[in-house]
């Protein structure tokens, strides 16, 4: 895996964030914008220092230890994104059952083995139902019912 210049990435990120904040906060009143402006000065200054360090004495890092790690993290994040995208549409319970089972299978050594599928399905049913009962009935949290079914 290739090495990355950590300081350069941090410096660029700081300037991008600072730029976005700068552009979107120009219409603020003097009281509302005062603190934002002070912090922006700090961000741009410190970001510039990081960029400078990135050119002079960079800290090189290996972002992923292996291609397997990269693949696993990407799949894990995609699963979370899909789950969150569908939760308000399909409802908390159905999406959670599917997500929990899929996530459990994903972490298993042999995801498609019969034992793994059954174990994941059973755990999904128990854990999701338990938390649903606690939060929905016990604490009165209105969990998404699903826009598709309304």
């Amino acid at each position, binding site marked *: 895996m290739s090495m990355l210049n950590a300081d350069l990435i941090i410096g660029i990120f700081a300037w991008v964030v600072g730029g976005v904040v700068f552009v979107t906060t120009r219409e603020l009143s003097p009281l509302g914008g*005062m603190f934002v402006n002070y912090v922006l000065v700090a*961000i741009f200054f410190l970001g510039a220092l990081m960029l400078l360090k990135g050119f002079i004495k960079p800290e090189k890092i290996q972002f992923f230890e292996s291609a397997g790690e990269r693949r*696993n993290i990407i799949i894990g994040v995609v699963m979370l994104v899909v789950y969150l995208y569908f939760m308000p549409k399909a409802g908390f319970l159905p999406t959670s059952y599917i997500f929990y089972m899929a996530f459990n299978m994903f972490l298993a050594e042999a995801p498609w083995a019969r034992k793994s599928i059954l174990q994941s399905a059973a*755990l999904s049913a128990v854990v999701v139902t338990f938390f649903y009962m606690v939060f929905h009935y016990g604490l009165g949290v209105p969990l998404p019912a699903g826009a598709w079914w309304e």
Partner: protein
Amino acid sequence: MLDAAISGLGHVFEFYNFLSLFIGVVMGILFGALPGLTATMGLALLVPFTFTMSPASGLIMLAGIYVGSMYGDAIPATLINTPGTPAAIATTFDGFPLAQKGMAQHALVTAAVASSFGSLLANIVLAFAAPPLAEASLKFGPSEYFWLGVFGLTIIATLSSGFIFKGLLGGAMGLILSTVGMSPLGGDVRLTFGFPELQAGIDLIVALIGFFCLPEILTSIVGQRRRSYTSRQVNPSLKVIGEVIRDLFRQPVLMLRSSFIGTIIGFAPGAGGNIASMVSYNEAVRWDKHPEEYGKGTIKGVAASEAANSAMAPGSLIPLLTLGIPGSPPAAVILGALMLHGMRPGAELFSAYADVTYAFIMGLLVAAFLVTLIGTFGSFVFSRIINIPARFLAPVVVFMTILGSYAIRNNVLDVWIMLVFGIIGLVSNKLKFHPATIVLGLILGPFVEEGLVQSILAGKAAGSVIRYMTLQPISMVLIAMSLMSALWPLYASWREKKRNPARGAREK
């Protein structure tokens, strides 16, 4: 006063009241332990149940919830690197590394004992010195709050590993995140990008879950497929309890200092347990002969954080009971409970209602002992949770993080924010950029902003901003402490190089 305290203690040990206290402590531990549920939420949910009770029983139960939650937040902070409440951020710094070394029980027992110690000391202060301290809390104006916030930000110097400007940049990023939503002065809506849900700002717990919990799962469990959270199985034993208690009593200065910091920060209205634990942790690192041990798993780090955040709870009740000014959000709920029972804060509380007030204060005191017992013996059960194979534990944790983020404001956007912060946290960890500095900025941002803008306005009205901000006695003390705190790591590094030139040369 002593008679009232003894009578209050008698009330606490009446069977029904003691049972209420026990239930309160257990509920508090549960609320503290579940990310997304806070002491404030627990108190608010259970206040209605206290209506039907006598004022003493009701308040004793609330005392139990408050004290219990101050300990409970250390459990997820230790086991899964997720502070149960914002007050346990600093607990994660050493609690989780201890758990990873197979010493989760050490961390949990430390948290229980230190929490009780902090709570005990703050309760003694509350019982005997509340009125004069409450007077002092009124001396905190905008400039004092600003400098207190700046003092908090100097902790970045301790949290930054390596290049200090990287840590400062993290702090600045956190400060910018804290400006999302309605500005405290001026009423502008800032950085909401069209999402009305963001007008209330970014919730701290959502940020904590995102920055601390998710990156650990994504990297270790999902990415590297580690089979367990720990490198060694946790084997709880009675011996550990004895060892930890003995080690903690060998650190009387650390325990006393942390408890006093918690109490003092508690009685400054608005400053919560998160600031108390961070400041206390910073001071522990600064004054320790072996600062290099912190962050790698030492019970001293856990003790510093937990003693302070637990001392903050009774500390925050000092201005509440004497002046009616709640020192923290849970104290505000307790104020509501007092009013509902027909009790008004002030001198009357310590004369006409002395019986009930001292029963409440003694309830806090006894709750501290119950926390020691439940926490110490509960550590046998809690610490084993981490032995569950990661394949089964991680999905439950991920699921809890999602539910916890959602439940705070019943809002899916908060879960998205948690996920984004989780990814940022993962990238930050990989880039050796400690996300705790971002969180610190996020916590202290509103504090610093309000203090700064109000000070500038007040200073202009008074004729000189600089004089207003720097020449007040408390401000001067805080400025001196901030300077000392910021420059200390540089001094420590210079001293280390002088003592050990070979190491200094290697570091270069």
